[in-house]
């Protein structure tokens, strides 16, 4: 049988149903064939533990990228337009990538090698990654000299006060909330009570919480220790906003920038142009380089289109790249199986997300551990991998900690999923018998997307084989997490995925499994409240040495997966990205979870 294409083309010109049938040939197998070598290489990529840098590490300029040249225009093809440019509203990864170019905060991640796997947290606008004398309750930051906004006004502590206080205003509702919660010392969204209208109605945070004694100093006072603050402040969501230039809602479309680039034009849903920011001084920046003169963004470019263009590698596309589009499933084999030249233009790595199937611990039937074990054994991973495009897009996960986060253990696999990703129906059935719960009704809430529909049906089928009575319920994709996030939701099992906000499990385990944080909308989707887990979380949180804490988190992760079984880890998300042949400095950065835009240059 020959390839379908040519036949079908000929057939298309002859509109006869019969002819169409004849031409319906297609070769077997998907182009997304597995590529073992890459997998192992990926598995080896494991986030080395991160250290907090001192003043020396924090002084600019950033290390030059080997062989980098300045000048040229970079063509950036993106699927999604940027919905938010206001730092306070930035949380999602593609906006995060952009933020590395235009926004700066007190701290940031500096690459310690050119492979994108080694990082340390250093002072970005601040002189160092922060100093604490009492194990993380009080943090002091001092601003560098010569830091300016893109309108030329110097950045002062007043701007930072504005930046943090406006996070409490109601129109800021998309960004991270760690800092707000820490300042208000609350869970959930109660923090807004601390400063309901933000700084706009003349109220401000008292010095007992946020102190700005002079124009260069910012001091945080927390009630409880938060050794992770340097990580948190590195999030784009906490980058600085100009007090003078704060236009509230409108800031979201036209912000002042502090990074090496500023926004020349932005047509939502269409295009964006970044140009060099003359007010950015490399000497103040240990993290970013500024090689390219200009970056032209085009939006609404679907994965297969960006891939096709970059593969074609002609004209402007030679200097083309996409920060967040991955190679589409259809072309993945062509890319991975390509020649050396192509390999040089390709990067692959893990995204910081780990998928899991949550088990609703609020439902009495599921409080029986044997039943949960049965689920854990029965659950097949293959349908999920299939739905996301095969082994080059996802691989079986052992624990909740992603390979990009310190504390990941590649060998950990309690349910034998890595050996037998199809699940073990027989063993599950036996356990279910033992628990006397054969025919137990499981309400399975699934995300109503093509993928969701596909894998949920397959998973349901597998669970049925293991003796469960599965009731699938579709949940609108757009409100999925809000539905399953409700404490009294009706679902017994449901998938979720969580990405670390910074490469420490402290942004994975506590939000997902701290029983004291159970509330509507809290990401503790399985509503687990395990006293041992809770206390271990506190213990780990208190460890200020990143390396030690990583080890603690790893132990806790394995305890949860093996012994608590409130959720079953499913997949580690992976992606492959490609760039044009003239693009230099191509690196997959594990913290960003994609190509690192800060190092790029045009050959």
């Amino acid at each position: 049988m020959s390839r379908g294409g040519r036949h079908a083309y000929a057939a298309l010109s002859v509109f006869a149903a019969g002819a169409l049938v004849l031409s319906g040939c297609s070769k077997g197998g998907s182009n997304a064939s597995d590529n073992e070598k890459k997998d192992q290489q990926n598995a080896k990529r494991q986030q080395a533990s991160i250290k907090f840098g001192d003043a020396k590490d924090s002084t600019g300029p950033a290390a030059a990228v080997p062989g980098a040249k300045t000048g040229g225009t970079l063509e950036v093809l993106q699927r999604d337009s940027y919905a938010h440019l206001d730092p306070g509203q930035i949380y999602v990864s593609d906006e995060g990538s952009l933020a590395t170019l235009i926004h700066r905060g007190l701290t940031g991640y500096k690459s310690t090698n050119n492979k994108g796997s080694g990082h340390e947290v250093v002072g970005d606008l601040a002189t160092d990654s922060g100093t604490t004398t009492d194990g993380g309750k009080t943090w002091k930051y001092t601003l560098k000299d010569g830091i300016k906004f893109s309108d030329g006004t110097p950045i002062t502590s007043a701007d930072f006060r504005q930046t943090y206080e406006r996070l409490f205003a109601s129109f800021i509702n998309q960004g991270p909330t760690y800092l707000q919660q820490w300042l208000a010392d609350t869970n959930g969204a109660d923090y807004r009570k601390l400063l309901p209208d933000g700084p706009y109605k003349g109220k401000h945070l008292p010095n007992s919480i946020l102190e700005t004694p002079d124009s260069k100093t910012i001091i945080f006072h927390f009630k409880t220790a938060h050794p992770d603050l340097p990580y948190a402040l590195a999030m784009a969501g906490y980058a600085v906003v100009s007090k003078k230039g704060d236009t509230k809602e409108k800031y979201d479309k036209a912000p002042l920038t502090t990074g090496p680039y500023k926004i020349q034009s932005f047509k939502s849903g269409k295009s964006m142009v970044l140009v060099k920011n003359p007010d950015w001084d490399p000497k103040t920046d240990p993290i970013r380089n500024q090689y390219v003169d200009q970056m032209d963004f085009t939006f609404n470019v679907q994965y297969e289109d960006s891939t096709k263009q970059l593969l074609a590698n002609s004209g402007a596309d030679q200097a083309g790249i996409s920060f967040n589009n991955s190679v589409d499933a259809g072309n993945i084999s062509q890319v991975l199986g390509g020649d050396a030249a192509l390999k040089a233009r390709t990067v692959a790595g893990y995204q910081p997300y780990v998928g899991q199937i949550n088990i609703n611990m609020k439902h009495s039937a599921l409080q029986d551990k044997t039943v949960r074990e049965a689920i854990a054994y029965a659950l097949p991973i293959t349908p999920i991998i299939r739905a996301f495009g095969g082994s080059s897009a996802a691989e079986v996960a052992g624990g909740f900690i992603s390979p990009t986060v310190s504390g990941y253990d590649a060998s950990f696999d309690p349910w034998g999923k890595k050996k037998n990703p199809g699940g073990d129906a027989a063993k599950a059935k036996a356990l279910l018998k033992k628990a006397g719960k054969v025919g137990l009704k499981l309400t399975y809430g699934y995300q109503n997307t093509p993928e969701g529909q596909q894998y949920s049906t397959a998973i349901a089928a597998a669970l049925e084989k293991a003796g469960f009575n599965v009731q699938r319920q579709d949940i609108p994709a757009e409100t999925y997490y809000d539905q399953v996030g409700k404490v009294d939701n009706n679902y017994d099992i449901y998938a979720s995925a969580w990405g670390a906000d910074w490469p420490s499990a402290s942004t994975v385990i506590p939000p997902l499994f701290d029983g004291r944080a159970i509330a509507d909308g809290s990401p503790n989707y399985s509503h687990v409240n395990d006293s041992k887990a809770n206390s271990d979380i506190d213990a780990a949180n208190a460890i200020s040495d990143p390396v030690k804490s990583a080890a603690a988190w790893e132990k806790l992760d394995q305890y949860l997966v093996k012994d608590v079984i409130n959720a079953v880890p499913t997949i580690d998300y992976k992606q492959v990205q490609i760039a044009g042949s003239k693009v230099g400095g191509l690196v997959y950065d594990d913290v960003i979870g994609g190509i690192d835009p800060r190092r790029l240059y045009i050959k």
Partner: protein
Amino acid sequence: MLRFLVRRILGAVVILFLLSIVTFLLFFGMPRDPALLMCGKTCNPTSLANIHHVLGLDKSIPEQYWIFLHNLILGSNQFAQGPCPAPCFGYSYHTNDPVWSTMMDRLPTTVSLTLGAAVVFLFVGLGTGMLAAWKRGTMLDKTVTAGSMVISSMQIYFLGPLALAALVYQSHIFDKPAYNDFTADPVTWFTGLIIPWVVLSTIFASQYTRMARSSMIEQLQEEHVRTARAKGMSRRYVFFRYAWRGSLIPIVTIFGIDLGSLLGGAIITEYTFGLPGLGRLAVESVQFSDLPLLLGVMLFSASMILLFNILVDATYAFIDPRVRLA
């Protein structure tokens, strides 16, 4: 003529008004809360309430409807995102862009798609249809009839993917359909739309062929056509002067309906080819339960349909002297 226009336009306005109410009720019948979508990763009652307030969803439905009408007619400066001149559909919940400009952004795609295809299928369809009627009973006629029957029974959601698979994915002859601004680069504009055009007009043309043929043949059996021949007028003359005139009426009618509904957003076509037109916008507005957008698109599509109804009735008067507009 004037009276006709006034009467019809008033009628249309009433219909649009009712439609907007229906849409409103429909929206609040939806089992989803738009605020949830904007509430983000760390959602909870307080922030939800906040968003409700910002969107004005905390007001009563009639109140919200009143505000909507007011803004639509008079425009508004109440929006945090900035002033919104009439016709103001407000700002999209999802993108925060003004609905009107969003629609105007998407319109060119739909218009290019529709008009491009319409020109082709109208002429090809009428051409072949009349040819078949002229050559009635011959082999040609039979082939055309059979062919058009088969093709017109194909659906865009079959022919479309087929064309994509054959021309784009398997043989890489064309690029994936895309809309490029005509003013920016006519060539890419053309190449980007060629597959949708071909598919769309193939299906429609076949329908118009059948229609043209049958209505032509019907006309040819009219008595006045026979009279014309009894006067010694040549077959060609009778065919193109007498029969064709009358055969236009049903075609104009259908063409009006098709054009109206296509310009209102060719949902399935745009969905099939991934073209960012009004149809896609409509689907998105439902997906993200984006009331302002939904209302905007609904009313726009409806007005297109109504507009073309009026145009069709007006054209009757030009075709048939017996028709008086009033």
